[in-house]
């Protein structure tokens, strides 16, 4: 059947082709489509009855003439070819080279949909990654095998932050040993160039596999691109024992493509027109991050999710937050004040931080000092809010101190700039320096022993007379 071409297309619209059924064609099967100009496209069977097949075409269905379109069924689901040579290469969403270099040669081919990982096969992630970014390392630590998205908005510097993480991420005291899988959907040519130049400048280009779908590339290809990229990441991590950092941007583009196809298929919409299965669909992608028992490698995932109109309750960031192991939220307000990276601390969270920090990982006081910073900064924001109502001069002297703490925390701790990479020790020392602006008895989330060791009281600072 692989060798037979059929002319069985009844209709084509919205990226979908309706075919008269061909016996023996299975759900998920890959289809090669040749249009009247001899151009090839790739599709996949997404619904099958005894009379009819529904095929989604990754290159879209523009300029398709059903009467003059030939299809061939390849007898297998979607596979990509894998070899160590994927590093340093650029592919499109279905794994074809986009860098004018030859196709990969290898006997190893894998189904891009994969099967779900057996939960009993997972190993719990606990190795602290130093990103050099204080707001992440100190307060929302990333560990190997975690999925930690960046929630952003249009015009905010999520690309810069993602590039900075790629450039700086390492285990404390070690050289970076990450391979990088970069998956881009709906990205502009400029942004793509930004990343390429960045990878080149930091000397990692040879360790990056890129899967690119640009803003003017077919929309439906975005549905398969993250799956292709993650199949490559799994190969690098679990066959080739590498630690892989996967940057996926932008998941909102992915979800829009999903909505487009779902609407064309007539699926029942739930919130904002997205199909009810958006949660499970996103989870299939995000849950491919992690560690596996008795395997050396790992997949750490940093997806970028842009929040339409900066709304964190929009279905895409919302469902993402329900699946990932925390989130780094960017703030337009901080960005407008010139703070880089503009990480909004209160809504940011790393759920895997608890097992990756402290004694044996970072420093013994880390969990408590992080919790103290969160509490004190929350108080500072309350006071700032109060000051905006009653005027700063009306504040008590202790509230005044909180106000000052809040400003220097944002300026010095969060706003570290794009060039500086800080060690975790420097980050924690800075936490204490800032907390020491507050009265000692206010710091009840740290222990007396921590205070004795790290709190810098004014008296000690004054030169001995």
């Amino acid at each position, binding site marked *: 059947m692989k060798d037979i071409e059929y002319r069985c297309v009844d209709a084509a619209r919205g990226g979908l082709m309706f075919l008269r059924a061909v016996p023996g064609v299975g759900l998920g099967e890959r289809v090669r489509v040749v249009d009247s100009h001899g151009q090839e496209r790739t599709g996949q069977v997404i619904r099958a009855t005894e009379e009819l097949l529904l095929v989604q075409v990754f290159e879209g269905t523009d300029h398709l003439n059903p009467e003059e379109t030939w299809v061939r069924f390849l007898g297998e689901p979607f596979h990509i070819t894998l070899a160590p040579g994927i590093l340093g290469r650029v592919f499109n969403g279905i794994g074809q080279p986009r860098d004018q270099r030859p196709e990969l040669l290898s006997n190893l081919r894998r189904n891009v949909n994969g099967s779900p990982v*057996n939960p009993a096969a997972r190993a719990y992630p606990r190795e602290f990654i130093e990103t050099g970014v204080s707001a992440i390392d100190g307060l929302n630590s990333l560990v190997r095998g975690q999925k930690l998205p960046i929630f952003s908005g249009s015009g905010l510097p999520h690309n810069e932050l993602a590039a900075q993480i790629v450039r700086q991420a390492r285990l404390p005291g070690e050289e970076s040993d990450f391979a990088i899988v970069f998956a881009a959907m709906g990205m502009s040519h400029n942004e793509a160039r930004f990343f390429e130049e960045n990878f080149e400048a930091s000397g990692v280009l040879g360790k990056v596999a890129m899967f690119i779908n640009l803003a003017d590339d077919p929309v439906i290809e975005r549905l398969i691109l993250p799956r292709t990229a993650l199949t490559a990441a799994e190969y690098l991590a679990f066959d080739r024992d590498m630690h892989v950092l996967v940057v996926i941007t932008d998941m909102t583009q992915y979800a829009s493509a999903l909505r487009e196809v779902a609407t064309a298929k007539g699926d029942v919409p739930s919130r904002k027109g997205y199909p009810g299965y958006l949660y499970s669909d996103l989870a299939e992608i995000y849950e491919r991050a992690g560690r596996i028992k008795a395997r050396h490698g790992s997949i750490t995932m940093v997806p970028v999710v842009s929040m339409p109109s900066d709304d964190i309750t929009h279905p895409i960031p919302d469902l993402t937050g329900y699946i990932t192991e925390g989130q780094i939220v960017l703030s337009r307000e901080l960005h407008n004040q010139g703070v880089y990276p503009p990480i909004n601390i209160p809504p940011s969270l790393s759920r895997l931080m608890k097992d990756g920090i402290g004694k044996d990982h970072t420093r013994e006081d880390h969990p408590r000092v992080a919790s103290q910073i969160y509490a004190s900064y929350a108080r500072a924001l309350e006071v700032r809010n109060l000051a905006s109502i009653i005027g700063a001069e009306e504040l008590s002297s202790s509230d005044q101190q909180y106000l000052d703490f809040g400003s220097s925390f944002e300026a010095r701790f969060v706003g570290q700039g794009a060039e500086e990479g800080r060690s975790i020790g420097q980050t924690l020392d800075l936490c204490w320096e800032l907390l020491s602006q507050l009265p000692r008895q206010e710091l009840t989330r740290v222990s007396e022993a921590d205070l004795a060791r790290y709190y810098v009281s004014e008296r000690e600072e004054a030169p001995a007379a």
Partner: protein
Amino acid sequence: MQGRITELNGPIVTAELPGIATGEQVHLGALGIVGEVIARERDEAIIQAYESTESLCPGDTVEALGHPLSVELGPGLLGQIFDGIQRPLEKLFSRHGDKLPRGDNEPGLARERGWAFEPNPALKEGQHVAGGAQLGTVPETETIEHRILVPPGIEGELLEIAPAGSYNIENVIAHVRDTHGDIHELQLFHRWPVRHARPYKQRDNAVAPLLTGQRILDTFFPLLKGGKGAVPGPFGAGKTMVQQQIARWADADIVIYVGCGERGNELVDILETFPNLTDPHTGRSLMERTLLIANTSNMPVVAREASIYVGVTLAEYYRDQGYDVVMVADSTSRWAEALREVGGRLGEMPVEEGYPAYLASRLAAFYERAGRVETLGDRRGSVTLIGAVSPPGGDFSEPVTAHTKDIVETFWALSKPLADARHYPAVDWTDSFSGYAAVAARWWKEEISPDWESTRAEALALLSQADELTRIVNLVGPEALSPAQRWALEGASLVKQGVLQQSALDPVDSYCDPHKQVALLQAVLKLYDTGRELLSHGIPVQELLRQPLLAEARRLKGLESKDDADPIADFDSRAENSLAELRGQYLRQQEGSA
């Protein structure tokens, strides 16, 4: 019975299968993918598949299995991790490696293992037995004696019972002849259809609180053994942490943790940590009383719906043996979404946000399986159900949260602002409620402290007064408050930081026993009350706010009490002395100046 697939639409498969009953299980295609018939229209059966349907073709065969979705009940359940239809995941891992296979229908219970069966000495051959009668026992773990009961529905004369010895679960250990003369061979295990609640003699009142060691839960919004509770909250607010804390510390005999559409790593966390944690009530490894069911978010959606029923059926089975069982389900929203997905693909009319009309009744029927009962064998046992709810956008008015709120008696509402300030557990004292407080009060009064009710009421009143005062401050500034009101704000802050906040990660404070819960709250309130009295003597509120005692009170919860030292009592007496001294000083000063 065999049939033929006619249509494939994601997990929904249509097949020509005349005469099949709804609810019956089927195997699809050559791989034998498991599915369940959910509807019949003439000769067509509509089937939901529990595994991916990739590569199935129209025309492939369907084989009916002749029974509904059932679980195996017998020794060997505890300490295991199963998928949503009770396949043993550890065994699949050792057989197939990292990824889940399709069509491997390994049964839930291990066949090869031998169990030391001890027959019930009170039973005589020839005696009449019925469902629930105890045939004997098997030591399933060091702490849990597995009681082998006559399955519900079987009744008659006990012809024969096996002597003490080692048996595997398929060995026949008793013969019973029913009134029709049919002879039933009873094994160490039996099967039960998961969508049918297991029968009991009658419902009983729940009387004892489920102690979780979490102050905001036990003291403020108690749940009873046999009760139904829910934990709603936006992402990251701490639903899973609350449920894991309950799984760790609750004074239940058996804990069933259902990971329904959530993260794989959360289950691994339990698998890796529980074996090394000790149950504070028995001193044994926690894993000996725990059982996990995992349908993580990347596993097939349809099995998510089944996983909840598999879990509650296992819970009822241990309840029937006379145990107090707690089942936590994380998250019931994913279960509801699975219903919605199947409903949508069947073209059912959605009512609210795409959910089918039967959402509310399904939820209610599920929670009805909670309860404390008198079992068929005249034991007392209970199933406590605790469901996490994950409202889209954190909006509690959405259908799953709203219906759940109407059904449960204990509602632990998690708040995003509290979680953002890292106030954990982020249980909101205004939006949460417990309909069990009056019953719990009786227990606390008798067992722990005669003043429990008034202490709790005082704390709740102080918290709500402070919320009101905060609103005023935010309108007109702190200067508008009287000294007593400023002290009330400080008192509430002491309660929040010193009592309500309880880090699951703190080695000392992760679990707080009931005596400490009461002592801590009383110590903090006494400090507040004494301060109030000092204010009435004219001592300035600034003077009180300067006291180092306040910082100490906030740290008190984390101090370890040893045999010879009780930090709370110690603090209490020091606070009393130093406040008395302050008052003395002040009164002398006033006399001096007068």
